[in-house]
């Protein structure tokens, strides 16, 4: 059994084990009076499986931990999830199935198309708050999507925070640094670019060029040739998970260029910063969440580490997806707590009001500052830079609010 297969099988078996009892057993398990149910349509399989498996684990572990700590205002949390295979048809069908069978108060989906496709039914049901790993700006919209919130900063805000940091760190320098954008031709890539460019212009930063590529199988050399002509001081990648970033960096260095390499959110996972670090380049970027090794400054991170030690000992790498899902679980629990404490039923109006009342929500350090969810998102983040000695991402700035 090859190395890569053993690790993946273990992961997926773990997922299945957690999936099995909850998905089927969930319905059969005797529902306690008024359990607070979190439904989910997770991309356990398909091209987004590494994120889906992590997020599914996170919700399971959060629910186990929260119930052990007394649940929510005396009620138990229950997590019911099924595999969407990252396909819209299946994801929507699962949403309808669990909504019918379990009447959940919270639902976590797998993508932007999913969030938009279930929006009208979710709102019509009047008893569910939805969320998803998508940081698309259109989803953080209290008026248009009253039932939905983004468990982090939107791509646009991440770009704005990045520009703020660039401007701030260049305050002393003679000339403002020139910036080049490289992003993928999809919503994941394009969504934040206009906001980033606008903020750059406001801050007097010079965007020397944009390179748009396919999502995968990118033909790097011609794009690097263009970058060579632009001579950027900073190259910001947006809309990629790992794939072409290391190759871009390798060919830039071979062409004698050594710009600062920046990225956002999901691209700041171990796969990327280690591959780029191996080339001697310090990946820098903005993330809404802290990294797992920062247990000192974040009590919640320590809790996560203990919970993992108990329930999932061989689960070594805690990715930003895991943190995002755990944080999302905390927001769900807090909304439920605020409603139940004021003994208001868990309907859309009350839950929306409760969420928007959470202007200084303590995330136990997962998201640095106290989170303000009135805008249906957590508009803050911090710059992290790769430390080749410690082989981890270390903070390189204070927490910035978008």
């Amino acid at each position, binding site marked *: 059994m090859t190395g890569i297969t053993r690790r993946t099988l273990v992961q997926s078996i773990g997922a*299945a084990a957690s999936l099995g009892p909850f998905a089927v057993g969930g319905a059969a398990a005797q529902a306690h009076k008024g359990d607070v149910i979190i439904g989910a349509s997770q991309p356990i399989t398909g091209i987004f499986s590494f994120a889906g498996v992590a997020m599914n684990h996170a919700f399971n572990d959060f629910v186990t931990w929260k119930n052990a700590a007394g649940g929510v205002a005396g009620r138990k949390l229950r997590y019911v999830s099924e595999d969407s295979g990252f396909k*819209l048809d299946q994801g929507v069908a699962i949403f309808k199935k669990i909504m019918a069978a379990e009447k959940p108060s919270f639902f976590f989906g797998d993508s932007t198309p999913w969030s938009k496709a279930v929006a009208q039914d979710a709102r019509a049901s009047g008893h569910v708050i939805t969320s998803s790993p998508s940081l698309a700006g259109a989803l953080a919209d209290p008026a248009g999507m009253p039932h939905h919130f983004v468990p982090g900063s939107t791509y646009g805000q991440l770009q704005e925070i990045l520009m703020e940091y660039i401007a701030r760190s260049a305050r002393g320098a003679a000339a403002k640094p020139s910036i080049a954008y490289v992003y993928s031709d999809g919503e994941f890539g394009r969504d934040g670019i206009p906001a980033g460019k606008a903020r750059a212009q406001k801050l007097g930063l010079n965007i020397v060029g944009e390179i748009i590529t396919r999502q995968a199988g990118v033909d790097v050399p011609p794009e690097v040739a263009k970058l060579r002509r632009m001579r950027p001081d900073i190259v910001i990648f947006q809309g990629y998970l790992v794939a072409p970033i290391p190759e871009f960096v390798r060919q830039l260095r071979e062409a004698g260029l050594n710009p600062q390499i920046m990225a956002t959110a999901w691209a700041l996972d171990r796969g990327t910063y280690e591959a780029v670090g191996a080339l001697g380049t310090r990946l820098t970027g903005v993330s809404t969440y802290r990294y797992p090794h920062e247990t000192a400054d974040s009590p919640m991170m320590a809790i996560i580490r203990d919970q993992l030690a108990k329930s999932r000992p061989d689960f070594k790498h805690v990715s930003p997806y895991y943190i995002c899902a755990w944080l999302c679980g905390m927001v769900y629990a807090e909304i439920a707590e605020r409603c139940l404490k004021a003994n208001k039923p868990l309907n859309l109006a009350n839950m929306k009001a409760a969420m928007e009342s959470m202007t200084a929500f303590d995330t136990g350090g997962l998201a640095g500052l106290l989170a303000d969810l009135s805008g249906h998102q957590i508009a803050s983040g911090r710059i992290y830079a790769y430390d080749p000695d410690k082989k981890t991402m270390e903070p390189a700035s204070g927490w910035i609010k978008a």
Partner: protein
Amino acid sequence: MRTAVFHQSFRDDERLLDSRTQRAWMAAFLAALFTMPFWGSDYLLAMACIVGIHLVATLGLNVTTGSAGLISLAHAAFMGVGCYTVAWLARHGWPFWLTLPTAGALAALLGVVVGLPSLRVKGLYLAIATLAGHFVLSFVFREWDSVTGGVPGTTIPRASLFGFELRGDRRNFFLIFGCVVLLALAARNLARTHHGRAFVAVRDRDFSAEILGVNLLRTKLAAFAVGAFYAGVAGGLLGYFYGSITPEYFALTLAVFYLAAIIVGGLGSVLGSVLGAVFMTFVPEALRLLAHAGSQWLPGLAGLLLPMGQVVFGLLIIGFLIFEPHGLAAVWARVRRTFHLWPFKT
């Protein structure tokens, strides 16, 4: 051997359902279908609506590729054209009974354009030409922001009939299956007329057909147009059902899904389209249920089985191609034949 079926006139011989038992079965089936919203669970309804939408598109592809033998990989793109047309028209206040036919007509027009190479090239070259059609249309979906909403996609206001909004699966169910029955009947009728015969003749030996008086130009383009019309209507129904759509939905894998459906179901027959669409939509579902049922005894099963969805999908295509080229329709016919004179021996 069917007994007690004697026709006095050619009109009877040519009817679609030529015996009382057939008419009874069809009536029972339609009754069960149109009362499903009242006894079906939410989940069943959602799946039924998705199957209905895929069925309309499969019926169309079974005309273009099943009957006329013109391989089309652009079917998903035509569905996109239909969906975006409905989205745009619905936003300008058009009622659904006007947007759906218009969407179908526009998709049919594009079907003719993409079908033009079919006059000069055949077989694999044609498949690649339609593949090119698919990518060009996908590019338009992603870039023409003002109409298609570009990469983030667009929303489609709910269909409404005289102000009565078609929201929720129950109301959409009737809209979808109203179209399914109408278009299935139309496809069945096509096979009874000279157009249907011309399609099959063009598929089997288009040179001989031409000498017998079949105008290849008009017949091949008609095959593309009808297929694209169905895809356009299916796209419109998809828009009303989901309420919002992004370009990623109309991927090449969807076109391959429909090709698999007509092959597994049965090339060239309406029954084949029905069986193919239902079967192929439920393969991932059946796999999920199997994985969950099995996960009690074999915890690892779900982890292994779920990603295997695509493997099973591929195995089905190859299995049917080798062992049952005429698809489920032939299996269905064999089963029906054994029960003709049930319980007596035929």
